């Protein structure tokens, strides 16, 4: 019997939603770590009972929680994120140099092969790794120390490394994305990195085609086509067919191409999902309608998915890590809103059901498909 576990991080705690393979009836457990911001929670592909959660709070800083039993019990593990060597500076909002300072973990990406190895994307933007189940973290400083690092400047949400993608066909290749620096790729196991932002155009930059400085909101990849990347940028939905070496816009007929989330269907590498947001200052869905847009053509042509979603008076946002897909058939799609709803579709987006409502603001959604 298959099952699904949805890991929801919110502004005031974590929730775990479970269902059988039909995905019609849901049990909701939580809040876990009540009162703390749970920026992200994710399970290991190599051991689905191994979970990691980023727990933080303005008063008490960063805590890392680990579960070895699928979220029944949790243990705090290492929370020391010490930048490698002399940390140096990046650009502050006013253009002056500013020391690198750790604020929080935005994203955990467990290794595809080893449950004890996890990558962490943090603010101020850097990539860390543990190889002992979270007890100790080391910075993979080749990213931050490549040429453009001192010139990175935070976006409104902070200088955060929020996206980490491992190439399942090449263990030495990995992608990260940083707001507001852009996307980067390593081909040598995180020793060296290069910006991969050619083709991005951001009118908010003095040089709209600059090599770095683009506010990339999220990047997604299908494991069967690891050279194809999809990006939701500040404005513009983008696609790369050459592992990020170049990008072209696939916003097509979307009502607005601003947004945060983007994800790919589990079984159809050319089927992608976004949730358009009205604008960079109006962080809510346009026209009071909560609509997921699906493209079955890898972008360019989009259809609104509305069945089961509020179509009047809705002014929620969907944050960058708050959409995920399961690997069942039909593919399940899940997303959480700033209004505290978690919506699920058990038919690839054709219809939706609120599987949790009235939670705190949803920061992240991840899904595990269980045997």
């Amino acid at each position: 019997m298959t099952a699904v576990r949805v890991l929801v991080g919110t502004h005031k705690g974590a929730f775990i939603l479970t269902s059988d393979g039909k995905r019609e009836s849901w049990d909701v457990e939580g809040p876990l770590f009540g009162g703390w911001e749970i920026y992200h929670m994710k399970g290991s592909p190599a051991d689905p009972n191994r979970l990691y959660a980023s727990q933080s709070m303005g008063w008490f800083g960063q805590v890392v929680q680990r579960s070895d039993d699928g979220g029944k019990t949790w243990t705090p593990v290492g929370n020391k994120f010490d930048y490698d060597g002399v940390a140096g500076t990046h650009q502050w909002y006013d253009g002056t140099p500013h020391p690198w300072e750790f604020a929080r973990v935005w994203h955990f990406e467990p290794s595809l092969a080893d449950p004890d190895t996890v990558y962490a994307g943090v603010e101020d933007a850097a990539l860390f790794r543990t190889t002992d189940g979270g007890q100790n973290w080391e910075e993979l400083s080749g990213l931050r120390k490549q040429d453009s690092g001192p010139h990175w400047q935070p976006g409104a949400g902070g200088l955060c490394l929020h996206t980490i993608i491992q190439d399942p066909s090449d263990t030495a290749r990995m992608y990260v994305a940083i707001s507001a620096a852009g996307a980067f790729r390593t081909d040598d196991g995180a020793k060296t990195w290069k910006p991969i932002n050619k083709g991005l155009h951001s009118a908010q930059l003095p040089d709209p085609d600059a090599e770095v400085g683009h506010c990339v909101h999220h990047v997604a990849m299908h494991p069967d086509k690891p050279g194809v990347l999809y990006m939701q940028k500040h404005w513009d939905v983008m696609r790369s067919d050459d592992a990020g070496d170049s990008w072209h816009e696939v916003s097509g007929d979307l009502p607005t191409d601003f947004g945060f989330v983007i994800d790919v269907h589990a079984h159809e590498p050319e089927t992608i999902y976004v949730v358009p947001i009205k604008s960079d200052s109006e962080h809510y869905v346009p026209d009071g309608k909560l609509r997921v847009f699906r493209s079955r053509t890898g972008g360019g042509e989009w259809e609104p998915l509305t069945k089961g979603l509020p179509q009047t008076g809705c002014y929620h946002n969907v944050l960058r890590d708050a959409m995920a897909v399961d690997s069942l058939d039909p593919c399940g799609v899940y997303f959480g809103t700033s209004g505290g709803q978690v919506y699920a579709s058990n038919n690839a987006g054709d219809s939706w059901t609120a599987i949790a409502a009235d939670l705190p603001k949803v920061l992240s959604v991840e899904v595990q498909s269980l045997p």
Partner: protein
Amino acid sequence: MIRVALPAHLRNLAGVGHEVELDVAEPVTLGAVLDALEASYPTLRGTIRDQVTKQRRPFIRFFANEADISHDGPDAALPAAVLGGTEPLMVIGAMAGG
């Protein structure tokens, strides 16, 4: 024996009650008490002060015997009432919000 009172979130994290009691070697300073606290409860490392610089987190305050000693520095001696165990060193999550 030094008594340390913790805020609710840190009590939950450390799995303790309202107060903990610590043996602290002389001289009993604020820094020495925090060292002893983190040694006894490693999950509190980084939640009260930075793990590298040892600086107090911005929204943490230390109260003792009805005085705010947050700015006294790690080498400052604690009040006699705390040293004598009649008053706890209070770790406080500062009022922050609107």
